[in-house]
């Protein structure tokens, strides 16, 4: 299964993940 997020955010938003990372629910995905 897959979850896709699609959202609007200021240009200052930066992702804190990399492709292939194993992530846990609740950990930062990105920050404005």
């Amino acid at each position: 299964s897959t979850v896709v997020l699609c959202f609007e955010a200021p240009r200052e938003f930066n992702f804190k993940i990399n492709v292939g990372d194993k992530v846990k629910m609740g950990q930062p995905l990105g920050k404005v």
Partner: protein
Amino acid sequence: RPENSKKRMVKWVVATSFTLIVSSYLINQHYQKIKVAESGDVVEGDLQDKEKGKYRIKIFNNNWLFFCYSTLPLNAISRLWGQVNSLNLPTWVRPWSYKLYATLFHANLDEMDDPDLSHYENLSQFFYRTIRPETRPIDFDENVVVCPSDGKVLQFGIIDPHLGHIEQVKGLTYSVKEFLGTHGHPLLQRTPSEEKLGQDAKTDNDHREFARINDIPYSLNDIIGHTPGSQSEDHLQPFDYKMEKNQAISDQDSSKTLTLLSELSPNYVKQKLSSTDTQLYFAVIYLAPGDYHHYHSPVNWVCKLRRHFPGELFSVAPYFQRNFPNLFVLNERVALLGHWKHGFFSMTPVGATNVGSIKLNFDKELITNEKTQRHCKPHTCYEATYENASKVLGGVPLIKGEEMGGFMLG
């Protein structure tokens, strides 16, 4: 000996003709599908809405392997998988079978809320197990978007508002409009015929109701139509949804609503957005069979409506995502649309063969991978609005880290 050869001849003729009939039926089915998707004509012919022709889904331009794979009755297989795994196991078998499953799929048994494996009556219950909250610390910084679930990051990035594409995996892209719903650009403008479609569909499934999507102030059309950040007044109009829905959803947690009130009320966001320059971002997270299969709210946001796309249940494993174009647009999925304090926000769980059931805690009416779904028209979505959830916010208020639902077997 002549009789034997005659018998053998008859056998060959019957086997060959049976094979030809079955394969021609399957090929015909697929050409029908492609024709419906491209022309917009509904096979039953009761809705002649040419507008739908804007769907241009190239279902298969792969090799024979995927063609044959696509002929499998995956929805039925998924339902059967769910039913088999809902059979209660004898108590003495449960620990062994779940440990075997955990070993095979690298599931972590140390985080479970209820560590006693014999308490899980069947594999479906074990699969939908809950974990101890302290094992998933939430970053509550209001400017941080957190991961909605466990899993592996397949892709993330910025969506070019002019192209409106999400890059699925390395180079495979598909349109956000197809993914979140277009049925004739409802998010851009709704033509009278689409209104009619909405009403017709409503009469078909009167427990499904349509609302006018383009009333969402932060809807995709304002983003796709022009560069995010240059917000025009008109898309911040008050809502005038026609239909109330999901009576069962009420303002259960007024304190929750209050916490969101200051941040997410349309007026607040209007002031905030008028001063900021925004873009559209996306992230794709794949949940492996051993992962914790509940999803949580990644931010404080208001979910205003959901679009349920009945569809196929192809596997969404990375291998299939790499080789199967448009997989996400074909698969069953539930797009949840709304807004957070920086604008539009959506979260879309996409089903797969083993996990055809997509659950929402705040919407008991949503049932996916349903047997009766077969009457659903291909490439159609069914919308429900949540305006009744909170009178002030016009949707379901969701707090960061709050469990929203999950994927269940079958």
